[in-house]
Every structure is written in C-alpha cells, then in structure tokens.
C-alpha cells in the first residue's frame, strides 16, 4: 500500500502497454486545449428551497471528455496533493479506456469512501492544486474530484456490490470508538485483516459528521449509508447509543476480550465567543442547528424535533460548517441568510465550491466584521446584534492576515436567529475517562507514527488527534492506524505463543 506508492511504482504502471498506447492516441497539445468540464448543478433558485443535491454529477460523455485532459504525467504531482496518495492518473486512464469499474478498483486501493471524498474533499487545495495544469500551465486543474465522484457513483449504480477480499477470520476482537470517517476506515481495514471488529457509536445513527454535520444537499445520506453497509457486509458490527467512557469504560471492554482500540471520537465540541448575550434563546451553535436538521429531522413536520429558524439569520464564521449552516437556514425559509466573517472572501477556509454555491443561492456576506454583543426582547429571545468592523493587518501564525478592529465602527443589525460556527474542540469524554492518557494543551490525543497513543494497544486518529480537519485526513489516519494495530496485535500474539 503506502510503501508501494513510490516513483518507481508509478513509472512501471505508466509504462504498461495499454497506458502508453492510450497516452499517444491524443497529442498533449490537444489534451491541454480541452476546457475543463463544468459540473451540472441544480438551479440555484430551486435548490435553495429544497434538499436536492446541488451537484448533479457528470454524464459519461462529460467524464470521458475530462479524462482526456489528464496528461498521464511522468511525475504525477497530483498524487502528492492527495493525503491518501490516490493513484490519480491510473484511475483516470482506466476511465479514459472505458473501464470504469477498473477505475473504481484503483480508487478503492487507497480510499474506502471515494463517493464521499469526490464530493467533500477541498480538491482545490489538495490534489487539483498540485496538478500539472495548475502548476505549469496556469490553467484549471484536471477535475479529479468530479471524476472520482463519477467513477464511484458509476460503480455503485452499475457494479455488483462486491466487498474487498477478507483474510480468514482470526477471532481477535478489536474495538473502534466513533463511526465517522476515521472509525469507518479503520473498521474496514481491520476487517480485511480478518479481525472481529465492533464499532461503538454514541449517537443513534452512524457516520459522525458525515451524517449529523454535512447536509443532504451536499452529501446525500443514502451514499453514506451505502458505504456503511459495505462495511457491515464485511462482518463489522456496529453498536449505536454506546458512549465509551460512559456506557462502559475501555477497561470494561478489555474484560470483554477486546485487545486493541481505535479512538475516533472527533472534534465535536462547539466553540462559543464568550461575548455578552450569547446565551439568549435563538442563538445556537452550528452543531445544534445542523444536528437538529440533519440527524433529527428538525423542520420536517413528520418529526417531533423543533428547530430555530427565522427571517433574518446570521451565521458567524467562514468555514465549511458556516457555509453548511447558512445554506441550510436559507433552505428553511430565511429571507436574509447572512455569513459574517472577520476576514475577507480570500481568507475563507470553506471549500471554494461551497462559497460559489452559497453566492449563487443568494447568501449575503458581511466580511471584515465580528459580533461584540447580542440583545434580546423581554422574553429573552435575541432580536439584535452589535457588530464591529475589522481591517486586515499583519499576517498571523497561520500566515493569514490578522483582522484588526476598526475603533468606533460599531453598528447594529436586526436578527431573529444566530448560528455560531467559529470552530470546534476535541470531544473530551474519552480523555476524562482515562486520566493517564497523554493529551496536548488543545485536548487532542497524542499519538506516535503508528497512531498509537501513550497507552499500548490504544490508537487514535482523525479530528480527535488533529482538531477540526478533513474527511480525507481522518481516513488517512484510519489506514495508518489499522496497519499499526495489526502489527501491534500480531507482535502480541506471537509473544504469547
């Protein structure tokens, strides 16, 4: 796997006869003259009132046309940009050759959730940013994400629902804590090695942020469920409503025979800004808002869960969570759905595509501004916020220019709902239940190169190790940890013979 992903391997692959031939069929100049495919999208004024998936997916013709753009470079720099080292030219060339299920197999070599990554990876700063087109030609990169999604969707719709080859069951019990992308990846990988894997999930539904955070219009729940089902079919057991550290401790699970553990409990704790009036009713975290809508059916009259919306909704923040919240608020009927961000459009951490979609859907942006106080009516419900303007100063540690307050620039906005999306912190439940576990000052769990924590046999990965990061990084950690857990258990097994 990872160790095979070296230049020699790519070169050898690239020299295979069929790829040589395919490459030569179209001249490089002709390839670079093709313009990048445009993803068909639902009409902004229709989709902003429904849960329709915004990106409709490429047609076969579009996907093949785009596959022609990929030059099958001798040094495929795109791969460096992918945190799991997807063999990008290889899968695109299978696609170009018309072997779409073959392309899907390539994706599955490194990535167990390509239909999800094709939709949610920030490609413009990962694989596509390193593409030859961007680096050397100053053109738009190959549409790697769109093609990845196309191939994975095609395989799901046309292929047989196959599961990867599994080793003989070895009866060794492994526990995974959390069913987000990190946990799902570890579970799938460990099942391939033949382990008896159980995933424990605190919520009543599986998928972590993929389910409760990222909305339906961006990542349909049916796709997440399909992937989870594949992992179930590989023999992995899932137990919902089970909080490790509360329902039972890791020590209890050890007694039940689990020999190694993977902690993938995520960064689920919402940050607040601690400004006056922030606890008025009508002010909620993005997690609360999105969970009520995505996980609990809030806003759907067949479900009992209520949710706060309003005519004037302001979302504080500029990341994916803020973008998901503001677009959800719009879909729930807000007349003004506003992003308030303290820097400018350029610094926004959200995926470029989400920002584009948000603008098309009529989202307002108030940049270079930050709330300083909230006010409420006599029932304690928020009705106004005080905002101060900012300007950009010197770059800070993150390299982004630091927002500086403009004195005397305060003004008020009428609001009836506010959603706070200014970041998350690691979930502390596990750390609190194992005091001897080493953690950082940000409360993330410390791990070594194999993703093992300070306690032998206890591994961790994803947002609980990185703080709020990305789906693909969480999955990358999962793959590494599965390998680490496998060697750990094997060493242990042999030591005990």
């Amino acid at each position: 796997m990872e160790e095979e992903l070296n230049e020699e391997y790519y070169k050898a692959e690239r020299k295979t006869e069929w790829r040589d031939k395919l490459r030569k069929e179209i001249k490089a100049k002709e390839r670079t003259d093709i313009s990048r495919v445009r993803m068909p999208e639902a009409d902004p004024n229709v989709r902003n009132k429904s849960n329709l998936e915004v990106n409709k997916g490429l047609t076969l013709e579009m996907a093949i046309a785009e596959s022609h753009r990929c030059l099958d470079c001798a040094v495929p720099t795109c791969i460096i940009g992918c945190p799991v080292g997807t063999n990008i030219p290889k899968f695109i060339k299978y696609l170009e050759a018309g072997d779409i299920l073959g392309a899907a197999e390539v994706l599955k070599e490194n990535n167990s959730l390509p239909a999800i990554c094709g939709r949610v990876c920030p490609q413009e700063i990962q694989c596509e940013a390193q593409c030859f087109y961007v680096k050397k030609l100053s053109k738009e990169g190959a549409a790697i994400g769109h093609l990845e999604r196309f191939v994975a969707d095609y395989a799901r719709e046309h292929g047989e629902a196959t599961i990867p080859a599994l080793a003989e069951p070895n009866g060794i019990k492994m526990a995974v804590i959390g069913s987000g992308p990190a946990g799902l990846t570890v579970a799938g990988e460990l099942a391939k090695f033949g382990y008896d894997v159980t995933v424990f999930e605190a919520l009543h539904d599986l998928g972590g942020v993929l389910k409760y955070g990222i909305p339906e219009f961006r990542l349909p729940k049916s796709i997440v469920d399909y992937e989870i089902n594949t992992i179930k079919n590989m023999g992995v057991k899932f137990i919902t409503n089970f909080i490790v550290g509360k329902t039972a401790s890791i020590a209890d699970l050890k007694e039940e025979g689990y020999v190694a553990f993977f902690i993938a409990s995520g960064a689920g704790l919402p940050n607040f800004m601690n400004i006056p009036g922030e606890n008025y009713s009508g002010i909620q975290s993005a997690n609360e808002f999105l969970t009520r809508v995505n996980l609990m059916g809030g806003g759907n009259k067949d479900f009992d869960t209520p949710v706060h919306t309003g005519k004037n909704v302001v979302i504080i923040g500029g990341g994916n969570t803020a973008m998901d919240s503001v677009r959800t608020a719009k879909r729930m009927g807000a007349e003004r759905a506003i992003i308030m961000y303290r820097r400018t459009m350029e610094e926004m951490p959200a995926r470029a595509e989400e920002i584009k979609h948000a603008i098309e859907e009529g989202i307002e942006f108030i940049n270079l501004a930050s709330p300083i106080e909230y006010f409420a009516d006599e029932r304690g419900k928020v009705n106004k916020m005080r905002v101060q303007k900012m300007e950009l100063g010197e770059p800070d540690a993150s390299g982004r220019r630091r927002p500086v307050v403009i004195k005397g620039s305060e003004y008020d906005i009428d609001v009836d709902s506010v959603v706070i999306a200014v970041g998350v912190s690691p979930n502390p439940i596990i750390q609190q239940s194992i005091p001897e576990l080493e953690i950082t000052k940000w409360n993330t769990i410390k791990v070594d190169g194999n993703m093992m924590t300070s306690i032998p046999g206890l591994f961790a990965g994803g947002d609980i190790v990185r703080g709020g990061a990305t789906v693909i990084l969480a999955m990358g950690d999962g793959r590494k940890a599965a390998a680490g857990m496998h060697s750990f258990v094997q060493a242990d097994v042999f030591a005990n013979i």
Partner: protein
Amino acid sequence: MFKIIEKKFLSENVAKLVIEAPYIAKSRRAGHFIILRIDKNGERIPLTISDADVEKGTISLIVQRVGVSSHKLCAMNAGNFILDVVGPLGKATHISNVGTVLCAGGGVGVAPLFPIVQAMKLAGNRVITIIAARNKDLVILENEMAEYSDELIVMTDDGSKGTKGLVTQGMEEVILREKIHQAIVIGPAVMMKFAALTTKKYDIHTLASLNTIMVDGTGMCGACRVSVGGKTEFVCVDGPEFDAHKVNFDEMLSRLGAYKDKESENYEAYVKSCEAVSLN
C-alpha cells in the same frame, strides 16, 4: 431497541417505566441521566435514572407528561420497545457524609431527587426530605422517599395533603429549626430559583439539578448551556448539578422557552391526532 419491562402510573400525569438496559444499569450512579428517542421520528429527551437493578439489568425512569414526547412515552406499555436509550450521562452527584442534608423536590423534580436521597442516606447522612406538589393527586414516591429519609415532609399548594404552602416555606422552617450542612433542590426552574434564594440567606451550600433543553447529551451542541457564576457551562457534561447560588436562573428560564411556540403547535397537532384516532 430497549424493552419496557414494567410501566405504571404513579399519579395522573406521572408514569414509571422500567427498561432493559444492562450496561447503563451497571455504570450509573446517583445523579446520572439518559437520553431516549421513542421512534425514528421522535426527539431526543433527557430523563433522570431514578433507580437501577444491576442483576436484572434494568433502569427505572419516572416521567411527567408535559408535551408530545413525554405523552407518547407515558402511552407506552410493558413489552413495547424504545428505539434509542443512551447513557449514563452527566456527572454523578458527589455523595459524602456531610452531616444533615436537606433535599427538596418540586413537581417531577421529585423523581430525579430520589436516587440522591437514597445515596445520601446510605452514605450516613441525616436526610430531611421535602416533596412538594400542586395537590394530593400529584404527590409521587412518598413511600420510597420515606424509606430513605430521617424525616419526610409532604407539601401541597392547596393543602389537600401534608402541609399547605410552597416548598420554600417548608425549607425555611427546617433551616430555622436545625443546622443544615447541605441542601439539594430539584424542580421547575422557578422553584429552584426561589429555593436557592432561601438557602442563600442562611449561607447553606446548595446544589440544583438543572433540566435544560438537550439534544445529544455529550457536549456536542451547546443547547443545554447555562451561565454559572458568569461562566458558560454545559449541563449535560459539566452538570446536571451546579452550585445553586451561582446559576443564572432567569437566563435558564428564557432558554427553556426557546421552542415553546413550536412545541405547543406540535402538541396541539398531537392531541388532535389522538382525538381523531379515538373518534374513529
């Protein structure tokens, strides 16, 4: 799926449910709660674990009908299944031998008070318990409380049972009569607010168990947040018990009302649908 083993009404609007949940039964301590979801369209609601039987692997819940979910729950029977039950949640009550403890419960606050009374007694404290209700039909857990209390005072608003008056009056009488080392108050937010003001006058350390609105119960959403001593705390993970003299009850009351309009709408729709069924 979690099976209901036993169900009975303790009063007109309060039911006791015994539910099969072996892991939770084993891990729970006094003060812990669970969150349940009745069916796939249900909301997640928090309820205190009022008792547990480790051998049988069961927990008991005592629920008061106030809105849609609690009505649906009270309409369920032994043999039915609850889709989701998760817990135990929250921090357990810190139980130690402090001397004399005054435990005051109002309305359905009596249910979450019971495991604390029990644990305080078993830890060797002198326990004086006050349970208050609007009228005699709403008094619950009288025998259970009596068993673990050195003294039990029953109070009703209309005097139909026990002493007539508010819980705060009962508390004050006890406080004036003997030295109280610690107080614990659980009930509607308004009651806790005034109970806290009462004990503050006499400088008695007091805990209140807060029943805020919750979603996940694991610190993920912040729906349950309250200001305690000027600091924002999450009731589900930092509580549910806090120093009652530091809690901002007015803020808590306004947050409890956050979904009031929508909930009343849901509730009316639910009542109508029930009527429609019974007419058919």
